[in-house]
């Protein structure tokens, strides 16, 4: 099977073709090694970083932006969103503070500083 993939690793957006044969991926069109790796991953195990917001419980109408430290499996994006939506945090919050410990093998951390 041949898959056309637009590389998103860098802004160049190279058009890649990936040929999958029995779990082995052969990539063409890449201009760097990372592109090759990306196409392979997109075929075998696509992942995405999820960014969203978490309610700050001790501050009225305040939310803090968050992200998954590492990309999570693409198929788990909406489940991750549900977990993030259910989370709460207390101010003060600093960039890098862990909000959720284990979300599909990674953490959700704050990406903004919030004063008390």
């Amino acid at each position: 099977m041949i898959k056309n993939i637009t590389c998103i690793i860098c802004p160049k957006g190279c058009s890649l073709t990936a040929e999958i044969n029995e779990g082995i991926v052969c990539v063409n069109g890449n201009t760097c090694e990372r592109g090759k790796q990306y196409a392979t991953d997109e075929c075998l195990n696509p992942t995405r970083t999820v960014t969203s917001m978490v309610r700050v419980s001790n501050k009225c109408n305040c939310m803090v932006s968050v992200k998954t430290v590492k990309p999570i499996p693409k198929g788990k994006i909406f489940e991750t969103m549900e977990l993030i939506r259910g989370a709460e945090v207390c101010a003060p919050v600093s960039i890098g503070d862990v909000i959720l410990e284990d979300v599909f093998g990674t953490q959700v951390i704050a990406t903004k500083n919030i004063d008390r």
Partner: protein
Amino acid sequence: MIKHDLVIVGGGPAGMAAAVAAYDSGVKDVVIIDRDASLGGILQQCIHNGFGLHKLGEELTGPEYASVYEKKVRERNITIYNDMMVTCLTADKIVTAQGSSGILKIQAKAVILAMGCRERSRGALNICGTRPAGIYSAGTAQKLMNCEGYSVGKKVVILGSGDIGLIMARRMTLEGAKVEAVCEIMPYSGGLTRNIVQCLEDYNIPLYLSHTVAEIHGQKRLEGVTIAQVDENRRIIENTKRFIACDTLLLSVGLIPENELTKEAGIPIDNITNGAIVDENRQTLVPGIFACGNVLQVHDLVDYVSDEAELAGNGAAQYILNGGCKGDSVCTEAGNGVRYVLPQRVNTGTGKDVSLFLRVTKPYGKVRFTVKSSENVLAKAVRIKAAPGEMEKITIKADLLNNITEPITVELEEV
């Protein structure tokens, strides 16, 4: 009136990087004036990731990228005026700003303009129909969601495939809204490829190229839009009209550099970039006034904004310390397939490499760029593909710039 060496108008990514660069080049009396309560500008509402890969070697979210630079600013003895807006700038570098402490007048030795840009509004598009609630520019909706924590709608149509619109398509989808369509009047998208892939394709959001919103319906709140295909002259094709029910229309139809202050100061503006005409140090045609970031040209990556701001910061520092460049200069011109080239002027014989930034007129496959002055070839560059949404950078080596007297042109050929 108080005096400062360098006044920077705007504390977003451009203003912060320019301040740091100027400080590190030896100007210690640096002031940043910003309209918001905190530094960072528009980055504060860009909670998605993808910032900093080039500049910092890691992928950060907007607030994280801003905090990296804010830390650099705070580590230096740079004065910050928050919640203060510059209301007037003169060519002799008197800056007037208004804030809750009153009106501040500063005589600066040099000024760096870093006001960023604004979004094109509905009014500028002449869309037919009614004027209900529920129509937002994408950035306004982004602010209401990501800074205030509110949802702006449940069924959404997005006009324009600019990056903010694409990012908002994903953001609203993740928050439970249904994005019915993204309409782009051009036959290609103006957004970055990665955003098309990650924000639309990942969520099966249809992108209709050569389509626009023909009419807006609803009295109080938006009830729907009529979308339609357009011909090559961007005129609506009547029999392609169809109604999409929605309560929200986001507009992501272009960014306009905020150059009202620039114009009031009498600084000449480039009609294509809508930013000031500058040299490679990002100095405008008014000596001592510099510009960088989205107020100069709309960038697609913040990394390049920071780069550009460093040029302006260094340039302003040199101007303050030793009067800046005083030699000959030539202008740059956009040739075949090139929409604009920035800087618009290049000082010759400075002994420094000069990078040209440019955008192409339409999407191309493999192209070769040639930079020439008269018959002298100054640089060549090959790209696998080129699109208007992605800025190109081509560097001319210092020694080739020594004896140039004719304009520098950049053109492309398909190969």
